[in-house]
């Protein structure tokens, strides 16, 4: 069976190339997509990000990519993985910049408060042990040694704690990953996290969300 291509959304302000590099090294069919029409046929998508929320969200909307993603992921149920800024943009926003997030998952993006994290430097740059707090498609709850690379000054706060599936610590516990149906997001950079990231992207590539099995997306 041929595996469907993973479309990596290229909106001109992310590290789409890094993500593509790792997917290719994993032998997963993948390509960059910068056109709304291209996204509408995507079976599996990654929204990467090393950008500024303001610029990223405005670009996604301005190029018609936000509408295409909405149709494909919210209406048709295609699995979507947001990475770092890509994950933050799925929230309502509220932190970085002025432009609002897409608001597709009930969550906010907030700046780290240096007082809350005991005076640690902000942004949080570096590796952190990361663990699953409930079943999820990205990291097995049995995993005890996973560590990932983080580079963020903002963190995600889920309205419903049940959506916060991965956790890490930087002076305080924070949401390292969320899942709501076919939408998943991670605060760290799996494409830059050695074998831990390799394993996570491979799991995402093999995942069929429950909603997608019922219809919408041909598996």
């Amino acid at each position, binding site marked *: 069976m041929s595996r469907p291509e993973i479309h990596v959304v290229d909106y001109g*302000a992310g*590290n789409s*190339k*890094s993500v593509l*590099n*790792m997917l290719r*090294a994993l032998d997963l069919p993948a390509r960059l997509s910068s056109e709304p029409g291209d996204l509408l046929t995507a079976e599996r998508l990654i929204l990467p990000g*090393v*950008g*500024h*929320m*303001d*610029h990223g969200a405005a670009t996604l909307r301005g190029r018609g990519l936000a509408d295409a993603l909405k149709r494909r992921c919210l209406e048709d149920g295609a699995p979507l993985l947001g990475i770092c*800024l890509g994950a933050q943009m799925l929230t309502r926003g509220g932190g*970085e910049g002025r432009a609002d997030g897409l608001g597709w998952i009930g969550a906010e993006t907030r700046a780290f408060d*240096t007082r809350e994290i*005991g*005076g*640690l*430097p*902000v*942004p949080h*740059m*570096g*590796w*952190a*042990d990361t663990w699953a707090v409930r079943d999820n498609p990205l990291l097995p709850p049995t995993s005890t040694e996973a*560590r990932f*690379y983080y*580079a*963020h*000054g903002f963190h995600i706060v889920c309205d419903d704690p049940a959506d916060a599936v991965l956790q890490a*610590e*930087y*002076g305080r516990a924070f949401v390292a990953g969320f899942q709501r149906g076919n939408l998943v997001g991670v605060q760290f*950079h799996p*494409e*830059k*996290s*050695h*074998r831990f*990231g*390799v394993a996570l992207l491979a799991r995402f590539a093999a995942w069929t969300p429950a909603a997608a099995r019922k219809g919408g997306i041909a598996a």
Partner: protein
Amino acid sequence: MRRRPPRPRIIPTLLIDRSGALVKTVRFRRRTYLGDPVNAVRIFNLKEVDELILLDIDATRDGRPPNFERIEAIASEAFLPLAYGGGLRDLDAASRAFDCGVEKVVLTSCLTGGPWLIEAAAARYGSQAIVACLPVKAYWRRRRVHLPAGGAPMISDPAAAAKAAVDAGAGELLIYAVDRDGTYAGYDLPLLADIAAQVDAPVVACGGARGVEDFAAAVDQAGCAAAAAGSVFLFQAKGRGALISYPSREAVEAAWA
């Protein structure tokens, strides 16, 4: 004293010259040729290093743009965070570097021309993607930021320059002690401590490291968030042949106070 991050990063710094070859300098001058940087990156990748910093040390001096082809070839082998610096004179050059697959850009010379490039790059890519590099030279007890290219003026107060870079949007500071580069003399701890005490952003030590004890000193004594080094990861020992190495997490953790 600033609180130590849970996992301070240990970062090999790789220098490339105008031909795209990997080199290592002593005090930013005498160079040892070390071959193909792509090979080195493959090895560091296998060793699961925390992060890599790649600097083209001739681009600014030559007045040429970065060697994007080379950066892309290197980035394609790096499944770990990669920062690139050298010859990034405008936002377009920084954008192209990101398109090559690097996570962060290292900006140096822009400090003389005002913080506009840091501001513009941070506005588009976020502070976490912007590293300001301050090459610092010691003059007796004084320290000065020493910008190598084109007879640029020196900035007398490194901590003030560091603060200005962070205010402009730099998310990280790479403090490179020029006269310790390649000397195995240890980090300039008073300089690092002075800067780390005055900025909120992570400070990365560079220049002079001999081994894990120096990494620990930079973090525990000077308050740095990370420790970078070149020679110690590229040579068997001072004055000896090339050998790529990287300490185990256990060895690093055993050195923390």
